[in-house]
């Protein structure tokens, strides 16, 4: 169980290696990448800001919930600071005996990160404008659907 907020570039292969286990049969990982567009606007870069003390508590809580619900090992690394297009903003890794648990746990973790982790995102557009995103919630991650 690893939870980390970092300003450094996320290197998924290094993180993947921390998950290796000869008793696990299934590994599922998720990465959130900075896209070059959002809601019809050209995105140049993103800025992520975190409330670190609280994020540490809530991040570990989310992992703990996932591990006890789904019988998995799991980890989260979330980047903060200035990110460019194609950078990794968040990485989630999950291992288990069986694949079903890895998918359910990985999805549970990323959905809960988006709703509960005290991290905020500002988009910087190609025309120089900036905007703090004020709603992370598309229909697919409606809080009502968070439990599965």
């Amino acid at each position, binding site marked *: 169980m690893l939870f980390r907020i970092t300003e450094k570039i996320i290197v998924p292969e290094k993180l993947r290696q921390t998950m290796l286990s000869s008793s696990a049969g299934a590994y599922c990982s998720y990465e959130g990448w900075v896209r070059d567009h959002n809601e019809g606007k050209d995105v140049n870069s993103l800025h992520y800001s975190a*409330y670190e003390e*609280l994020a540490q508590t809530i991040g570990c809580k989310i992992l703990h919930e996932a591990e006890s619900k789904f019988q998995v090992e799991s980890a989260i690394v979330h980047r903060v600071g200035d990110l460019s297009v194609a950078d990794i903003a968040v990485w989630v890794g999950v291992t288990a005996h069986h694949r079903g648990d890895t998918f359910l746990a990985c999805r549970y973790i990323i959905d809960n990160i988006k709703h509960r982790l005290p991290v905020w995102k500002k988009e910087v557009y190609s025309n120089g404008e900036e905007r*703090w995103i004020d709603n992370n919630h598309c229909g697919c991650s409606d809080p009502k659907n968070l439990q599965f």
Partner: protein
Amino acid sequence: MTMKIKILYFAQLAELAEKSEETKHVIDSSLCALYADLRKTYNFHQELTQLQVAVNHQLSAHDTELRDGDSVAFLPPMTGG
């Protein structure tokens, strides 16, 4: 009795306040009064009901009573990931 409260700002609130933290001396122990005061000073957009509150780095109910030495953060909806 005045209480010394440390206030932490994040995201758009930090940008509007132009600082990431400050210390205030307050008399009213309600989060509601504190936020109303800050909102007037910095022109925050949101109502208190739209924000979560952390007291001493723990998510706390909106009716939590402040005590001398507490830290407080008003948190806009989270948008990480």
